């Protein structure tokens, strides 16, 4: 830190040389991918004296980890970086800063909708060729599509979330003599066996509508396939479509079977749905939600993730291919500066992902990030499922829908799936009400 100008320049020069050398050997033996697979394979310009501002929602431990990533960027380029935490309401903060004529160089957006919105308003700068090459080399094509608006690449998906993880209490599985199910039928059977053993199996946090939309989306992606999923997300097919009814009926096999759900599901909020499975005096055996369940287990229950609490991938329905519903944080450039582009290039590299991955609490869709980087088996398996899903990754559908339909407590999809949880026999009525609510919101 004492010589911020001189020292990094030397490092950068040395690394740039190394990159060239590696590229040379890489193309010699295996072709194009070897260069990017190398840990220091990304080429960054010398940015000495320049300053790059990054805005993101992260604070606390996440901010500390991301600051480490920025520090590595500083060491590589000689630039100075400044991190601004926007708090939860990043849309408002960025909106005001754009109006004030002082947007940050780079923003990291937690919602795909925001990427479309900001790009549509012309507030984003397209990703430069270096970063675009990195994205193409390190990510499955779907991430390129997800980062693009009207065919132009705007974003680098630096952090990803896997919402296709089903968490279970290992003692309950051992007691019932069952193993991790791979298919939906096996899942229902497993739940039934656990119920027979005297433990109510499935805990659902139905007081929070978003847990139910996540259930639905995982089942829908598996029963209807990715194409229908995309169409339904854009409301190009109605919610009264047979595929929706099939997904609802599939869900009802668990939600509607007597004795499979921990009683009071529609009054149980998400944290309670997790703690009641892993507490000292447990009421359930299985809880479905995203990778962040691990955090709740660690902080709110005596169970240890990896030994007392494990997860399996959301089971496939009728031999559907591995698929993942999830989310992520996308880095976008808001100013046309060399620093912003260099940072995007860096964030697209496995090297940047490795820094945070090692520290934990991070999943990357970067397929060239070695899985051994993750600190434990659980996070490794989460990342592996995400990378394996490849182009069968889909965003949380309710996040893509207008908030009035997919994001309002007590309204739209949230409320209707809560009603469906109470009365899982009403497949047709639920589909009709969903369509009516969607039609009003997608006007």
């Amino acid at each position, binding site marked *: 830190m004492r010589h911020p100008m001189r020292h990094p320049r030397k490092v950068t020069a040395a690394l740039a040389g190394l990159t060239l050398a590696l590229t040379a050997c890489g193309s010699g033996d295996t072709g194009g991918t070897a260069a990017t697979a190398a840990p220091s394979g990304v080429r960054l310009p010398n940015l000495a004296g320049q300053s790059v501002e990054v805005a993101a929602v992260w604070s606390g431990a996440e901010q500390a980890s991301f600051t480490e990533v920025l520090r590595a960027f500083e060491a590589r380029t000689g630039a100075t970086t400044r991190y601004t935490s926007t708090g939860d309401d990043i849309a408002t903060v960025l909106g005001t800063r754009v109006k004030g004529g002082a947007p940050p160089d780079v923003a990291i957006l937690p919602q795909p909708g925001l990427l479309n919105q900001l790009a549509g308003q012309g507030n984003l700068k397209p990703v430069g060729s270096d970063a675009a090459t990195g994205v193409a080399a390190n990510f499955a094509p779907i991430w390129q599509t997800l980062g693009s608006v009207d065919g132009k690449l705007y974003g680098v998906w630096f952090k990803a979330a896997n919402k296709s993880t089903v968490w279970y209490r290992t003692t309950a599985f051992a007691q019932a003599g069952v193993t991790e199910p791979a298919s939906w039928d096996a899942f229902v059977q497993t739940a039934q066996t656990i119920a027979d053993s*005297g433990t109510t199996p499935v805990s659902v946090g139905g007081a929070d509508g978003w847990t139910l939309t996540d259930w639905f989306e995982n089942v829908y992606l598996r029963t209807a396939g990715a194409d229908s999923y995309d169409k339904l997300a854009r409301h190009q097919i109605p919610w009264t479509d047979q595929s929706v009814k099939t997904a609802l009926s599939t869900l009802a096999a668990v939600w509607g079977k007597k004795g499979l759900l921990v009683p009071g599901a*529609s009054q149980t909020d998400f944290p309670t749905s997790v703690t009641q499975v892993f507490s000292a005096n447990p009421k359930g055996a299985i809880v479905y939600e995203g990778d962040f369940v691990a955090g709740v287990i660690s902080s709110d229950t005596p169970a240890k993730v990896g030994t007392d609490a494990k997860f399996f991938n959301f089971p496939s329905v009728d031999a559907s291919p591995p698929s993942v519903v999830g989310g992520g944080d996308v880095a976008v450039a808001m100013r046309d500066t060399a620093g912003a582009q260099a940072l995007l290039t860096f964030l697209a590299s496995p090297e940047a992902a490795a820094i945070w991955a090692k520290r934990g609490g991070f999943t990357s869709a970067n397929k060239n990030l070695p899985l051994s980087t993750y600190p434990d088996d659980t996070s490794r398996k989460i990342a592996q499922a995400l990378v394996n899903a490849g182009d069968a990754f889909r965003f949380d559908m309710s996040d893509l829908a207008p*908030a009035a339909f997919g994001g309002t407590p007590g309204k739209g999809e949230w409320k209707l799936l809560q009603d469906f949880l109470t009365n899982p026999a009403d497949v047709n009525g639920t589909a009709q009400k969903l369509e009516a609510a969607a039609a009003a919101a997608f006007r």
Partner: protein
Amino acid sequence: MPWLALAFLSPGLVMLAALVVYPIGYTTWRSLRDASGRSYLGLHNYVTMFRSDSTRTAIGNNVIWLLVAPTVVTALGTVFAVVTERVRWATAFKLVLFMPMAISFLAAGIIFSLVYADNPDRGLANATVVAVHDVVSPAAAYPGARPRDPGPFTQQADGSLRSSRGYQPGESALVGLVGVRPTSLPAGRVPAVPTAATPGTVGGTVWFDFVPGGGGVPGAIDPGERALPGVVVQAVRDGTVVATARTGDRGEFRFGGLPPATYTLRLPASNFTEPFAGFVWLGPTLVTWSIIGGYVWMWTGFAMVLIAAGLAAIPREALEAARVDGGTEWQVFRRVTVPLLSPVLVVVLVTLMINVLKVFDLVFILAPQSSQDDANVLALEMWRVSFGGGQDQGLGSALGVFLFLLVLPAMIFNVRRFHRGQR
């Protein structure tokens, strides 16, 4: 001279204009426009508002609030005010009752979300109800237990188990149950054994048909499977119960001395009923009433203090004269105290009505998402439409104007009273 007066008044007038008149005007203007505020819609928002189901629920709930909450609070306040006049430690008593007023709506909401928690181990309301209920009717031995499906026994609509085949004396039955909770298993790990059939009796075994760790044959007693003592079993012939037995430590039961015939076996529902878990206070049916309960807790102290002040101002001679004339305490209260107190009671009632119309925080905090629609009130609907996902501030403003019009009569009434009082 008028200029001087105006100069002195101007700070107040400016504040009034900026903070009261302008927002009212702007809200009205905004209510005639669409979500973005760009285009003029006329009265369209008002039409949409009354067409929406959730606004109608909100109006209905507001009516319940308006009729119930101020009345109950004023009545309770009056009772407490009269009672505290006669007890020792009146000040301490009043202080305790008034204390909830010092708590914000938000904190009160959180307190009551704990009171109304579903789990009887956490929620005070359910803990009380369950304790009372369990005294009246004790819990079943094996809640949630059920037969294997398919199997020789099926669960009936009333919750009892019935054998699908008949048994004749000399035969024995295997009644394998699953879903027995670990907490209801007896402490001694007694393994189940088949009950040998003896001539002239129908016997059998009731056991937990599940080997810990899995394995085993459904419907057969495998090593490691445990007996279920204390289960009531009935022998039924032609629809009438002819004998009743209770399983012993090894899960065995026997009906001796049965005349030769075919009997079906029945395990009454009382073996399996789920323990009473209390009410879902914040579920769709009870939620509004539960929230009103929280509101009453907060505001009774307020009503009591105002009414107690009014009570202190009542001329004692009137009360004494009534007593001397032979009136009972109830008559004195009903015919003398209440009429003399009525101006205060009306003020309290009207103030509470205004307060109740704009209730928001308690409902917002107490009602869980899944029943927010059922607990909806106008102020909450206004927020939900404008900010909570709807993002339609035009429609929200229309609701605001409607709410304003509802509060207006009560306000005018109060201001008039105030003027009369001054004169």
